[in-house]
Structure formats: C-alpha cells, structure tokens
C-alpha cells in the first residue's frame, strides 16, 4: 500500500486535475445529447434520459459545416505553413546576420506584437480590398502569413544555440540555409511546436476577421457557423450549440491526440542537447 502510494502519488494528484480539465468537455458532450428542457431542469439529473443524437444533424443543418470544415483546414494549414517559413527566415536573419538597421527593424517587429489585431482591421481591410482578394480564402490567409510574435520567439531560441555549432557547420561547408536546416531547426523544435500550437488555435477560432472579409458561404469558416447558434437575442440554443461545438473542436482534439507523443517529446528534449 505504502509502496503504491510512493510509486503513484503523482497520479493521485494529477487525476483530479485532469478531471477538472476534462469537465467542460464532458459537460459539452452531455449537454449536446439533452433535450432543451433538460438543460435547465435540475430535477432531470446529469445525464439525458434518452440521448438526443438528432441534435447533431439539427445543429449541422443551420449552415454548410462540411464546406466550413474544409475551409478552416485550408486556411489554418496555409497560415501555419507560411508562418513557419517566414518566421524561421526572419528570426535567423535577426539572430545571426549583421546588416544595417537591424535593431530598428527588429524593434518594429516587436511593436507589431503590441498592436491588438482589432486596431489594424480597417487598414488590413483596405489592403485586402485593393489586392482584389475580398470574399476569398486568400483574404483569410494573407494578413497572417508573417508573425512578429513568432519571429520574436524563434529569435530568442536561435540566440541560445551555441555559435560554435554554427561555426563547425560552416567549416564543414554549410551555407546559411543548410546551417539553418541542419543545425538550428532541429535544436529549436520545441519552440516551433509551441508557436504552431498557439497559432493554429488562434486562427482556427478566429471569428471577427473572417466575418468581415467574407460574404458567401463557400469561403466561410467553422466559427461563423458556430456564431449562428450562439446568439444574443433569446439565450443560446444550448443543445445545438454544444453539438456544433463538439463538431468544431473535434478536428483539433483529434490532431492533438494523434501528435501528442511528438509534442510531448519535443518539449521533453528542450534544453537537453
């Protein structure tokens, strides 16, 4: 018994924490299967009498969620792919190259982090319109292909890589790009993963910008479909909203479950090498 306690005490501490973390997800799942009157009837208990699977088709019928899902994947995927390229190159330049105006430029990058996205909505809107990209998936991708925040994160990570490693690579005949690829990137993987998680979640959930620059259903994304069910006039339509929420978050959850080991591994290895 004592042995058990010693060996598994971390589990005893972490299990309640895990349950606490899971409880909203469970609540969403359970609510998505209730009838409307069960949601607020305290006498009805925690679980639905009969699971109302029909909430799912009913929720999905308010908007073309299949189309939205494809768009969300395309938009979020393109943004993160483009960002990983741009922030890697920019951060490398700022961390390891010497050129005139470097500090000033880097300062400007930092200022960009401080502007809330809402402050630049109008200017971005005008730019997108002049580029002729309104009401297209490009309008959702283009403003986010660079990231001051990501550049800053990666810049700090690159600076922690001992320059001896880069020098050794240079002696072996590596240019900038191959040094970056063979030396720097493998060492900053945890930072890249951390940034990717933040960026994917942010853009997956973005609501206001897509609402502003898109008009037709063909180019809209999942959060807009969700917005249809979470409305202000009459109290949310809880059962269908929760059903749609499950649908919207499950691709992300699935993604994390599949790549969980990889994510954790890359965090565990941070700083060991």
């Amino acid at each position: 018994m004592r042995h058990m306690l010693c060996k598994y005490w971390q589990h005893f501490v972490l299990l309640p924490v895990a349950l606490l973390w899971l409880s909203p997800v469970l609540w969403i799942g359970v609510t998505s299967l209730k009838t409307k009157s069960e949601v607020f009837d305290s006498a009805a208990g925690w679980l639905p009498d009969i699971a109302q699977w029909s909430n799912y088709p009913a929720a999905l019928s308010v908007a073309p969620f299949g189309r939205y899902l494809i768009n969300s994947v395309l938009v979020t995927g393109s943004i993160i792919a483009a960002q990983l390229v741009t922030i890697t190159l920019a951060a490398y330049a700022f961390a390891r190259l010497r050129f005139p105006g470097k500090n000033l430029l880097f300062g400007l990058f930092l200022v960009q982090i401080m502007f809330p996205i809402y402050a630049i909505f109008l200017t971005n809107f005008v730019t997108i319109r002049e580029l002729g990209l309104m009401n297209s998936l490009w309008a959702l991708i283009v403003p986010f292909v660079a990231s001051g925040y990501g550049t800053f994160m990666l810049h700090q990570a690159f600076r922690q890589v001992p320059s001896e490693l880069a020098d050794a690579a240079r002696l072996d005949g590596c240019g900038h790009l191959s040094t970056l690829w063979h030396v720097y990137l493998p060492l900053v993987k945890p930072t890249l993963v951390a940034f990717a998680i933040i960026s994917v979640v942010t853009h997956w959930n973005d609501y206001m910008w897509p609402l502003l620059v898109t008009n037709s259903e063909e180019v809209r994304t999942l959060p807009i479909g969700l917005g249809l069910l979470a409305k202000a006039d009459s109290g949310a339509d809880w059962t269908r909203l929760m059903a749609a929420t499950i649908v919207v978050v499950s691709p992300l959850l699935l993604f994390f479950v599949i790549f969980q080991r990889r994510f954790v591994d890359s965090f565990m290895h941070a700083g060991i090498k």
Partner: protein
Amino acid sequence: MNSSNNGISRRTFLGNTAALSVAGMLGGMPLMASGKEQVKLSFMYPVGVSGDINRIVSGMIGAFNAAHPDILVEAIYAGSYDNTEQKVMTSLGVGDPPGTWLPINSALQTFLSMDALEDVTALAKADDVYQDFLPGFLGTCISDDKLYGLPFQCSTPVLYFNKAALAKAGIKSAPNTWDELFATAKALTLRQGQDVTQWGLTIGGGWHDWMFESYVRQNGLVPWTKDKVMFDAAESVDALEFWLRMAQAGVMPTASTWQGSANDFMAGRTAMLYHSTGSMTNLRKSSPFEVGVAPMPKNKTFGASMGGGPILIAKNQPDAHKRACWTFARWMTNTANQSMWCKETGYLAARKSSWESAEMKRFVAEVPEARIALDQAAFAGAFLQVPGYHKVREYLKSAIDRTLIGEIRPDAALREATASSNREIQRMLRRRG
C-alpha cells in the same frame, strides 16, 4: 426534422405566391422590364434569435431571386447586431456599402450621421406603407418626418411568468400595474434562510436599458430626442427609484445577464422575467413548465420601446440599384412574408394586413401569447435613436447598475449619465457637421 422540411416547403410556397402577387403589382413598372441588365445587390443581416433564421432568410431570398429575374440579391450573414453594424461601417468607410442591410433600429441616427441612408418617403407614399404598417413600428424608421427603411424584424419587451409558480403562490392573474408587479414579485420570492431560491422578478440584464426606457415610457415620457437624452427627468428618476425599491426589498436581483436571465427563468430560479418577444418561442419550448406572457405592467400609461430592426437602403449607389433595393425591402415586408416571418421566428409582423390574414388568425388562436405583444405594440415607439447610441447605452446601464447595488442615489446617477450621454451625442453631431 420532418416538420422543418414541411416548413421550408410551406415557406417556399408562401414566398412564391407572395412574389407572384408583388410581381403582378409591379409588372407595369419600367424597373421590371425584361432584357435589362441584372442588378446585383447584397443584403447584410444579423441572426438574433435562432440559427434557423439563417435558413429562413436564405429561403426567402432564394424565392425573391426566382421571382425577380432582373435582380440578384446576395444574402450575407454578418453575425450579431454589433457585428453587422461593424461590417456595414467598414464597407461604408471604403465607399462600397451593401445595397441593403438590417441593423438594430437604435442605429438609425448613427447611419444618418454618416449620410449613408436613402430617403424612401416618396416611394413609400406612392405605396400602401403609411396605411398598412403599424405606426409604432414604422416610426422606428422615421427621422424628421422622413422614412429611411421598412421595419422587418420587430420586437418589444414583454413580461413572461411561470404559470406553475403563480398557481403555487395562489395568484390568479399576471400583474397589470407597477404596484401589482411589486406585490406579485414579493409573493413569488422564495427564500431558504438567507439564500433566495426563487426570485420574484428578473429584468433581463444587458438590455436592461431597453427595459428601463419602457418603464420611463410607462411614466409618460420618451427620454430622448434625436439630439439629446433626458434620463434625469422626473419620470426617469421615478422609474429607477421603483427598480431600487424592488431590489432593496429583495424581490429582484440587482444584476443579471441576457442569456443568464432567460436560463434562470427556464430553470425556475426566477418566477417572472422581462425579456424580448423574440425569446418567446425559445422560452415556451425550453421551459419544463407552462409559460405565461403578459404586456408590461403600466404606471401612468402602458408603454414599450421597440427592439429589432428595419431594412435600410444605401444612399451611395446607382439609381437602378436603389430601385431594386426598394423592390427587395418592399417584398421582404409584404403581407404574406411578414405573416410567415412572424410565425416562424417569433418577431412581430409589422403590417396590419398580416395580422388580419386568415393564416395569422389561425396562428394567434393556437398561440394567444403572440397577440399580447401586438396589443402592447399600440403603445410602442423607437428605442434610443441618438447618435453614438452604443456609448449612451453603456452610460445608462452603468447608472442603473451602480444605483441598484447601492453605490449612488438614482437622481445623481441619472444626472451623471445624462451629462455624459449628451456630451457624447454633441461630439458625434460635431463630427457630422
């Protein structure tokens, strides 16, 4: 799912018949001449009551487009009322507004101050608009005797009550006056020790400034004109003092949220609720008890402020587009479509002829509560149509909140809110000039 399929086919059928009759009426107009280039226009709308509204609106617009080969309307869902306003403002800012849109009626002066709206008075006078629309509803689109749109989705606050809770307390009918409201709320408040298990009354928070204006109207005053507010008038102060008495007597919570208050009502945590007519379908269908609906109790008079919004038409577009926009707005608000819209969504039909149609009479016989809101609409008027209404609403809400939690006296709070609001309105007016 089956019934909603029927609904769609019924709607489509309705829409088509209505479209045919309108097309018939307008058939002689040059606008409808065939062989002309198709006019494309967009319609930005919010979804305030239920996600199904998106389907209903899309269905209506599909029917409109089918019946009008020379006009193509693109339906653009634009989020909540606030989101829609932002989207329209942004488009106006770059000089490319949508042809028509559906804001909350309070925004009328805001759009007028941007010189964004087309005056449709002459078109309306040539039509039956002034005769057939309910005056209180049409009034939400009028400024300085000029008409700037057609009321499309109309609502007012009403008093919802839990019939089971009233029966349990031995109360036979819903309150009709402020005094009865107070007494009923007292009788319905249940406590266990210090804790309230059931409030007598909750006034839906978040929109409580809207409810408050109704109370002031019940005192015989409309607390605003198009360029100032009078929240510090005796009628307003008296209304807030009444709220404070109810809060201090412990029959009403000092604060609530819009969705939370509806949830509380459905869960039996409050026995009476001031909420929008737009919530009627949801409250009736989601409550595990029978829901009663009553007009808001009167003080000196009955009174209500209108919620919901009109279809507005942009000024900055070619004449052919304006005519197409009018055809569209007129079609969306025709007798058959308003009846259908009212039945499907819980918004109030804006036309007298809709309420007189056989179809609506059947509906009212089935759901007598729908009639309550119409009766009350006779006393209803526009809600806080002043420039910069967003901020003014916040000032007023903050004054009410601070009063109810006992931080400040009602008269002082309202004086402060009036001064800040009028400063803001003046600032917006200067910007216009």
